[in-house]
């Protein structure tokens, strides 16, 4: 029966009812994300064009903060330091995680795999603040590493391991190796062993199999691990603040410096925008494999 006045069929009525109900169900989550994520992020974008002058917030939009970013060497260096640390961390984490995930996926009896994997990522759950502090104790001149090297006679005086960029990278790599091990393992465990056999039957050597079959098929796992590593590491304040000794400050440290020492929210916002740009760039770099991984 057709409603002749409005021309709405029962099917369309039902479809509309369905759409309304679906939207209503999704609304709380969408509104929450809109109000407490999108709105604040837009506010940051807006504020980055404002200017803090003493205690005054100058709300005439302008590019002063961005100009300051390029004029003050501390900021530009912060960007390079951030990129350097994050790229090193991403590369090392993947390089360390891949062999571990590979050994777990291929050299350990299936029924023990989950156990070993769990064992390998358990410290992932250590308190994030405390983990960096623990590295400080490990790297100290009288810490475990230096004492071991000294007693083995490899070095004659303690190495300066903490309070530098290397320590920051190490602290990060420790955390993200565990994360990447998880994502890469999940890619590896989904590989069809028949592919491996087929390649071998066709005469491919072990290396060729890895390079031509295993690696390309596990790229989604690598890419999602690497992307997560990049996003979290580039925005982290705690690890460089505890382990870096205020040497070679990274963007998050500079952002926090604006927020907690100078109450210069506009400058902090501009730096945050630059931080977000880095993440967008990383996403574009990894997008090819990330979307394939999801499909």
């Amino acid at each position, binding site marked *: 029966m057709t409603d002749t006045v409005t021309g709405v069929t029962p099917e369309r009525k039902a479809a509309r009812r369905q759409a309304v109900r679906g939207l209503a169900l999704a609304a709380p989550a969408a509104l929450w994300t809109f109000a*407490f994520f999108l709105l604040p992020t837009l506010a940051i974008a807006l504020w980055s064009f404002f200017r803090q002058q003493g205690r005054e917030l100058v709300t005439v939009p302008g590019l002063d903060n961005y100009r300051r970013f390029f004029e003050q060497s501390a900021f530009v260096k912060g960007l390079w330091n951030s990129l350097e640390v994050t790229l090193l961390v991403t590369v090392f984490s993947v390089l360390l995680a891949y*062999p571990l995930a590979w050994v777990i996926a291929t050299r350990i009896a299936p029924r023990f795999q989950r156990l070993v994997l769990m064992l390998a990522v358990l410290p992932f759950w250590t308190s994030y*603040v405390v983990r960096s502090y623990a590295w400080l104790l490990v790297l100290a001149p009288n810490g475990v590493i230096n004492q071991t090297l000294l007693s083995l006679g490899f070095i004659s005086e303690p190495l300066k391991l903490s309070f530098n960029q290397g320590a920051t990278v190490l602290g990060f790599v420790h955390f993200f190796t565990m994360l990447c091990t998880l994502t890469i393992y999940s890619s590896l465990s989904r590989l069809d062993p028949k592919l491996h056999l087929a390649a071998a039957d066709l005469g491919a050597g072990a290396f060729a199999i890895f390079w031509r079959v295993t690696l390309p098929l596990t790229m989604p796992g690598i890419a999602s691990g690497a992307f997560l590593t990049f996003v979290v590491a580039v925005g982290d304040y705690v690890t460089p603040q505890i382990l870096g000794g205020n040497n070679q400050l990274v963007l998050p440290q500079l952002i926090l410096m604006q927020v907690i020492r100078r109450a210069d929210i506009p400058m902090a916002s501009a730096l945050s925008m630059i931080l977000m740009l880095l993440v967008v760039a990383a996403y574009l770099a990894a997008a090819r494999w990330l979307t394939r991984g999801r499909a």
Partner: protein
Amino acid sequence: MSAFLRSRLLGFADRTGALALTAGMLVFIYLPVATLVLFSFHSGRVPVPPFEGPTFDWYLKVLASDRVSGATLNSLMVGFGSSFVSTALAVLAAWGLARHRMPGRRVIEVLLYMPLAVSYLVIGLGLLLLFSTLGFGKSLWLVGIGHVVLNLPLAFVIIYAQIDREQARLEQAARDLGAGEVQVFFRITLPLLRIAILAAFVLSFTFSWDEFIVAFLLSGFDPTLPVVIWGMLRTGLDPQTNAAGTLVFLVSIIAAVLVELFLLGRRRR
């Protein structure tokens, strides 16, 4: 050398290599944790080697401290509260989006995924900016709101991935048998999703339990545990920090092991 011997040798090298690699990685992964835990039993005032002890004094001190116990309570409240809200919102959104044909679905999905790609620091800064502009003072409520922002996408991803077609057929069957939408939701959808829901809840909890920067920026006089530990790091060098850190670790791994044993292990079967 016979082919047999060669393959045996290779096999041996392979297994030793695998073992050495796993062992080496485990040492790397456990080194800081072991040091942390060891020095929580250190009897000296300064938690640096060489180790002296053991003593349980620092644990007693931490457990007796009003600041730490207050912060633990705050962390539990924020953790349970924000995980509950995140999971509930995620379930509704996942059901709405997966089971209803509607315009703008893709937009909502993207909106819900988006926070995953933005640093916690920026999210915290945005909330600080928003709330201070609106004139709200810092409080535990703001931390909770922030943690829902952080955990909602995660919970949504987990649950959305689990609402599969098979389940849709079961729901349709129930409808055909005369069940109303509410009945379908509570009798079919929720029970079928229970593992995903619990996984999302526990994961959200552990993330909130451990989250620092948002809590640091948004909490007032009621700091969460990571913020208090951060304060301890900055305001006094003693093994209490190690003891507090060890306790936090213990709570997190209990949650993680529970998920692993009861949820993920079960799903495989």
